[in-house]
């Protein structure tokens, strides 16, 4: 029933490989093979450093004009083993294995929905993103799924080991796993020792990777400068609203239905909904939660469809129509997402802009919105700000100066900020034009376009404009 026969497993496996390969193929065909999403470029940059220097970076001189490197070593290290081949193969491999692991986990938990849940998972935009780009969370997800499966098969020690090593890939995810493991350990007898080992290992991993935070002290900000509002949450969590790693709105709705049916106890349902809402809201600060959430949502959503299928309906017509619409909704999301893959940043024109920058003098400072910072680093340029806010030096004052520079109509103010940070290039692209000036010639854009004695447009194509600042002594 509902894709549970063994032959469907192979069909789903083929579908999984096809979808993951297709996303890479689309980027190759339309974007010269540039990965989408900034995290890939961050990891590639660190991996390149490790490969060249045979050591982990102590500081990141390109970010915020120089800052201590505070991050996990696992994923960049993995990529650095072969910087050309591994980034192309590893995500697909991890995706396929994660799918297989998920399939077997669901087989153990709820046999009836294993096929359906796996199908819903692999046609989710979040799954495609997770295993088409270079994100450390792909390894975390794979290790966690493997550990859960081992745990279900009573192989607790190996499971614990896998849980522990997730800390080398994403410490926040590892912390979340530790919390869940602790809650589980409190309710299950005989797990206290494992919990203690997990906790001690967690501390050791923290010290190994982040010992320098004791020298640096408390970070200026944890959540950065992201604004908390409903619009932002919706735009981040739902792929249908343009998020590159969000899940389908229909997946979310189906999961809500699934949770409703999975519990007869009102209190439990309420708790499930509350947890879902809290996790969803928190994704605005911890985007990675989406990658863990999608597996849960796939499970609940498939249970939702399964229940809708087998529960007594007053009208068979409404039953069939509702199920068909839900399935069409899921299909629509993945088709729309695949269609949009080649339009995600960096596009071909965007990549050309980066290539141009890469050809310019190394280590010069490029000013742009923080969302462009990591890409600019990838072009061997120092960024003014990037989206890695943790332990960034002077993040608040830089954010303030960035806002002043973007919004100023006064050339003297603009030049003062530019000189203060030794900015040499200013990067503007379509998204920035829209975000700050609604495509109007005003504020900084006006100054850039109509002050040729101060700014020289050195690059321009359909998407990107790059201006070079001409200092007083070179005019």
């Amino acid at each position, binding site marked *: 029933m509902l894709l549970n026969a063994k032959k469907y497993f192979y069909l789903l496996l083929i579908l999984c490989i096809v979808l993951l390969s297709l996303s890479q193929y689309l980027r190759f065909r339309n974007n010269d093979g540039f990965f989408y999403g900034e995290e890939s470029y961050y990891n590639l940059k660190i991996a390149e450093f490790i490969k060249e220097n045979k050591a982990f970076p102590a500081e990141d001189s390109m970010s915020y004009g120089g800052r201590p490197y505070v991050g996990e070593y696992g994923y960049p290290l993995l990529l650095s083993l072969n910087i050309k081949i591994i980034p192309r193969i590893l995500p697909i491999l991890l995706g396929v294995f994660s799918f297989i692991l998920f399939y077997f986990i669901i087989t153990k938990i709820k046999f009836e929905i294993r096929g359906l849940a796996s199908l819903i998972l692999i046609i989710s935009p979040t799954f495609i993103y997770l295993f088409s780009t270079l994100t450390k969370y792909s390894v975390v997800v794979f290790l966690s799924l493997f550990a859960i499966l081992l745990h279900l098969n009573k192989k607790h020690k190996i499971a614990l080991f896998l849980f522990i090593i997730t800390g080398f890939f994403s410490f926040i995810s590892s912390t979340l796993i530790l919390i869940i493991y602790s809650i589980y350990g409190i309710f299950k007898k005989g797990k206290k020792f494992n919990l203690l080992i997990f906790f001690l290992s967690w501390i050791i991993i923290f010290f190994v990777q982040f010992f320098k935070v004791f020298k640096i002290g408390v970070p200026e900000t944890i959540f950065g400068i992201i604004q908390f509002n409903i619009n932002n949450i919706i*735009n981040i969590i739902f792929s249908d609203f*343009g998020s590159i790693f969000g899940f389908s709105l229909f997946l979310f709705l189906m999961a809500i239905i699934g949770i409703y049916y999975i519990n007869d106890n009102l209190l439990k349902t309420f708790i499930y909904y509350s947890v879902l809402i809290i996790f969803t809201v928190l994704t605005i600060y911890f985007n990675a939660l989406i990658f863990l959430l999608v597996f849960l949502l796939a499970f609940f959503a498939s249970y939702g469809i399964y229940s809708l299928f087998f529960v007594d309906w007053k009208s068979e017509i*409404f039953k069939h129509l509702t199920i068909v619409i839900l399935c069409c909704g899921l299909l629509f999301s993945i088709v729309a997402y695949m269609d949009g893959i080649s339009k995600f940043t960096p596009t071909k024109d965007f990549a050309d802009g980066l290539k141009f920058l890469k050809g310019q003098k190394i280590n010069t400072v490029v000013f742009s919105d923080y969302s462009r910072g990591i890409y600019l680093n990838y072009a061997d340029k120092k960024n003014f700000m990037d989206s890695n806010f943790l332990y960034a030096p002077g993040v608040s004052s830089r954010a303030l100066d960035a806002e002043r520079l973007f919004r100023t109509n006064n050339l003297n103010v603009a030049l003062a900020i530019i000189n203060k940070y030794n900015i040499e290039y200013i990067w503007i692209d379509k998204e920035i034009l829209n975000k700050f000036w609604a495509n109007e010639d005003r504020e900084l854009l006006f100054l850039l376009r109509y002050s040729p004695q101060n700014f020289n447009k050195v690059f321009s194509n359909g998407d990107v404009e790059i201006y070079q600042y001409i200092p007083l002594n070179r005019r």
Partner: protein
Amino acid sequence: MKLQIKSWHLLLLIFFITFAFRLYFTFGTEHFSSGEAYFNLRYVNHLLENKSLMFYDDLSYGGRLLIYPPLFYVFMSLFSLGSVVMLKILPELFLSSIVFIIYFMAKDVNGNEYASLFAALLSGFIPIFLKDTLNVISPYSLALPILLLMLYSSLRLENKFYMWAFILSSFLLPLVHPIAIVFVITILVYFLLLSGGALVPTKLKKEAFLFSILAILLISFIIYKKAFFEYGINIIGQNIPLNVLADQYQPLSVSGLLIGVGILPLVLGCVGIYLGIINQKKKPVYFYSAFTLGVLILLSLRMITISVGMMILGIALCIFSALTMGSLIEYIKKTRFANLNYFIAFLLLVSFVAFSFIPSYTFLSNFTSINEEKINDIKKMAAFVDNNEVILGNLEEGHLISAIANRKNFIDTNFLLAPNPVKRLKDVEVFYTTFSEAKILELLKKYNIKVIYFSEDTKQFYFVRHLKYTKDNKCFRQEGNFYVVEC
């Protein structure tokens, strides 16, 4: 639903009065009443000529992508075959048919036939409804009857006919107009009202509502996919420039309601809602109250324009006015004035004539369509511009330029996915108000503008009498109300 012959006659009479009233004003002028009508006319003609929908408009904003729900245009093409007379009659026919649905809805909340007939009569003469829907080709003409039919069917799902009507409407409504969101909000508010425990929705209703919400969401996502990707949840703002947005999405005011909805529907409707919620624990009362509240919520969240909101609010209040009337009739029956039935009916008719019919008539008598001079100007302009050049007009004239002159416009009111509407709107202001020739020449070149249309409306809107930079300037040759660019 069996009606007494007498009621049928009266209902038909109300329909014919409404229809005739609308046709009288519609055919009182040769042209349509708004630029929007011409914009829709172009889509219908394109569909008839090319046998395909228009997804790229060469003429709007000098060329841009389009997204819109296509069903209305398909429907109008099929039933009008491009005849302007039919394109004038069909929307009026659909909008007049609303009186039937309002009658049945009013009967749902009240049961009294005469009160329901009165509600139907009121609904045909809501001032803002007449103003915004008369003599225009507008998707609202099809969307509003479908929305009301869907609401009415929602309460009769046990009947196969209404169930299929509901299913069909759930698919059709989002394909006609995004106003389908009103139904989704109505359902959510309805369940919120019922959560008090006064009434329990049937299982069938829950199933039907789940289905319709999902169907509306899916179809809307499919239609507006590009816009959702482009704007995210900010699609609600429809890419409308802020000053236009502030104009279209004004806050609701009592005076605005009195003028737009009319005194009778407003007073009787509000009292009806109060009586319904307090005295009558009936599902139709709760459901139509949810409809009214839903519209108010959408208005307060600025998700629908003030004119559309008031239009729907007016219709919703008409339904409840039947409840007030019914209660009044019941009350009088219990008093010693019970034998004054005919006098009361006469009084009601007089009040209808005084507070609804005459204001609507007076309002529409002063209501003008696009004037002949403007149409002639636009036709004349076409001769000076080739297919790749642009005619500059004010925001409201954009659709007219495209439809009548068949030339590229600089800006029009279809903002969704339009290229740089905010900037263009500001540039229009620059064109009409600046004195800097250099700036104008730069903009003319940038946008490839060949003709600047300087209509009376533009003069009034921007408070200008002359285009300063054209004075003694060989680059501009005046031809009546427009200037041809010659350098």
